[in-house]
């Protein structure tokens, strides 16, 4: 296998890993005000991803930086083409990332309300927009012979891209619900499970539509490939299991559904990395967008050494915080938040 094919697979794995892991963070971010009626319950919901979300987000950064290193042409065309969409993604990533740390740092209601909105909206926008962007790779965008994008922002809003974005968002919401059911107790868990049912049905519709649409635009065969079939089966399982007591299996199913859906997109994309709707000859491919052999070899060695280590300690961190998160004992859900007292004002008369 040529190294640029290997790197295409590595990047596909990084995108899949990103959506499987950060996918439930997004779901939790959107749903935390729905499953949590009180401040404490909302904190419980957010804390289910508290120790992990930042590490999960690194999968996205490494996917981006890995594209830069292995396929500079792809990175250059994709990031400049998706300019305004990525600006929105960045704004959402920033608002949401800071919200994790800032929301509870003040008792002010407006402060908390603002950051809560940042969390909800940010978590909603990111999978939607990234989905649109990834869908556009396969759908095709106006790209000229020097591999530069020639369209504008509205050319990015292709119907297939939008459907892909909605599919990814729907899957993240379902994934977040199954995750919350797995990671919480009592009313929060019950609400998450109740939500998983309608979210499951919506996700089934979205994934089935996505698979059909993908087959129709990607050309070739009229039958779904095994990964697409897996995606559909897994999302059906997830929706069905969410209604039962099998929290663990429901979560695994939604993880498989998200992995297979994202993976199937990359399978259809190969050997292209960005399709030109202007002229098929202008499409970026794994060979014409890749770095030289030496750079790919160096990156392969580094990845082979480091990636297992990363997986080991990230896995360990999941193991450490595997217990369900619940409200502190003696703190009924309706009581005021378990936060520290407001900051003591600076002494009026310094004794210095």
């Amino acid at each position, binding site marked *: 296998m040529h190294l640029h094919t290997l790197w295409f697979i590595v990047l596909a794995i990084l995108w899949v890993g990103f959506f499987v892991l950060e996918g439930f963070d997004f779901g939790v971010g959107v749903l935390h005000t729905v499953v949590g009626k009180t401040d*404490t319950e909302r904190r419980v919901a957010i*804390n289910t991803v*508290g*120790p992990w*979300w*930042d*590490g999960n987000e*690194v999968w996205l950064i*490494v996917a*981006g930086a*890995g594209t*830069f*290193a292995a396929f*500079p*042409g792809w*990175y*250059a*065309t994709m*990031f*400049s083409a998706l*300019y*305004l969409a*990525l*600006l929105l993604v*960045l*704004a959402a*990533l*920033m608002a949401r*990332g800071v919200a*994790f*740390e*800032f*929301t*509870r*740092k003040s008792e002010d209601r407006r402060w908390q309300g603002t950051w809560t909105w940042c969390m909800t909206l940010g978590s909603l926008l990111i999978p939607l927009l990234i989905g649109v962007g990834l869908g556009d790779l396969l759908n095709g965008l106006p790209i000229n012979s020097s591999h*530069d994008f020639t369209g504008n922002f509205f050319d990015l809003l292709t119907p297939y891209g939008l459907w892909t974005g909605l599919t990814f968002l729907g899957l993240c919401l379902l994934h977040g619900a199954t995750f919350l059911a*797995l*990671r919480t107790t009592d009313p929060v868990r019950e609400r998450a499970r109740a939500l998983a049912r309608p979210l499951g049905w919506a996700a089934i519709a979205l994934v089935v539509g996505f698979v059909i649409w993908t087959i129709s635009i990607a050309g070739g065969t009229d039958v779904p490939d095994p990964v697409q079939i897996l995606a559909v089966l897994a999302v059906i399982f997830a929706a069905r299991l969410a209604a039962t*007591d*099998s929290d*663990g299996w429901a979560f695994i199913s939604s993880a498989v559904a998200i992995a297979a859906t994202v993976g199937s997109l990359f399978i259809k994309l190969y050997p292209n990395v960005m399709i030109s709707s202007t002229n098929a000859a202008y499409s970026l491919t794994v060979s014409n967008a890749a*770095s*030289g052999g*030496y*750079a790919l070899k*160096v*990156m392969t060695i*580094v990845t082979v050494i480091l990636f297992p280590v*990363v997986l080991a*300690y990230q896995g360990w*961190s999941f193991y450490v*915080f*595997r*217990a*369900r*998160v619940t*409200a502190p004992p003696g703190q009924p859900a309706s009581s005021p938040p378990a936060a520290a007292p407001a900051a*003591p004002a600076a002494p009026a008369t*310094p004794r*210095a």
Partner: protein
Amino acid sequence: MTNDLARWQFATTSIYHFLFVPVTIGLAFLVALLQTAWYRNEKPEYKRLTKFFGTLLLINVAVGVVTGLVQEFEFGMNWSAYSRFVGDVFGAPLAMEGLAAFFLESTFLGLWIFGWGRLPKAVHLACIWLVAVGTMLSAMFIMVANSWMQHPVGYVLNSHGQPELNNIGALFTNPTFLWGYVHVILAALITGSLIMLAVSAWQIQRHREVASFMHSATISVIVLLPAILVTMFVGSELGVVQTKYQPMKIAAAEAQWTTCQPCSFSLFQIGGGKNDQTPSQIIEVPHLLSLLATNSWNGKVVGLNELQKEYEAKYGPGNYVPDVFIQYWSMRIMAYLATLIMLFALWGGWLLHRGKLAESKWFLRLSIWAVVTPFLMNTAGWMLTENGRQPWIVQGLMKTINANSPSVTSTDIWISLIAFVLIYIALGAADVLLMTRYARKELGQDDEQAGESGTTPPSATPIPALTF
């Protein structure tokens, strides 16, 4: 126009990002030191100090991390021609940074925040050290990438005239990188220790937990003093390296239009720019420039006019002189502030030695205000480095004017520039608000969670997570 806007945007976002980076690197190291002290001596005040400064670290990290995302995306968004041209070489250190540093930093930070009382003490201590190592590794890869733009090595030009990596080791032994990296890490330690010192001084001034905050003040001064002394030496060596590989940068920093030997250092001058090559009111120190730029008493520094002729002969017509005003003053702001910090650190070291730090009203007062100096110094240092590379984006290989994205219009960049500025103002305001608020809190008690209120998870019950 588009190119200028893209430059404004990159300058704005990277200068802003680098306000937070050195704080993260410096404070992570110092918090790790505090926790190590607690681990060894088991005195509760060290644990309380760890949590207190840990909270400040976390507030800062939040903004540092998200503004770093912008940097990662910006190469492709605004500088696609650059990314396409140099990605073969430049992309590798960025990808390695993600794999080696970002995962480490973020995963172990999560473990550290939520691991209090849950992880064994030694393991929990290892977590904060891994965070500190992660921040320094991250800086290492970025400096490798940046140094390659200053002094490209380890590549060959392929048939399309593009640089292709052929020796990764050369990137990591690039002299510009080695000196530059140590310089950056030391600057980060200076920044972190000045922050910790300022907060400790503020608390000591108000007679709050003086004994405890004297511990953190002591650690700050102990880190600050060697860091500033060594960084001045390293900075001067970096200047020598740059005189060799980027003579324009140093000549412009000295507004040295004509070649000189020996060269005196201009302490202050008015004029000396492009259209006014003979400045007035110069205060000079003989031989000092020769010494700084070449390490020899009578060393020769080639002037800008001669370099310009050389470059035109080599690269064709064009202006190869960076903005002299920015170079001259950023060099001086950086060096003068470093000198002031050094004097201040020596004073602190002396007071510490005499056991009088807590009583020195003026030192405490000055400590609080000294907190602004590292930010100005760091920014000036980067202005010197990056402006001094112009007109090149990669020295000798690609000009900045050819590097921006052909498909991105100036309207696009206006929109994003305004959006970033607005977001950054909001983030900056929230950050400063929280930092000052939490820095002024009373030191939390050992058993309570005041220092960690925002991030302390509700207790987890031992219900197994996977219930099938």
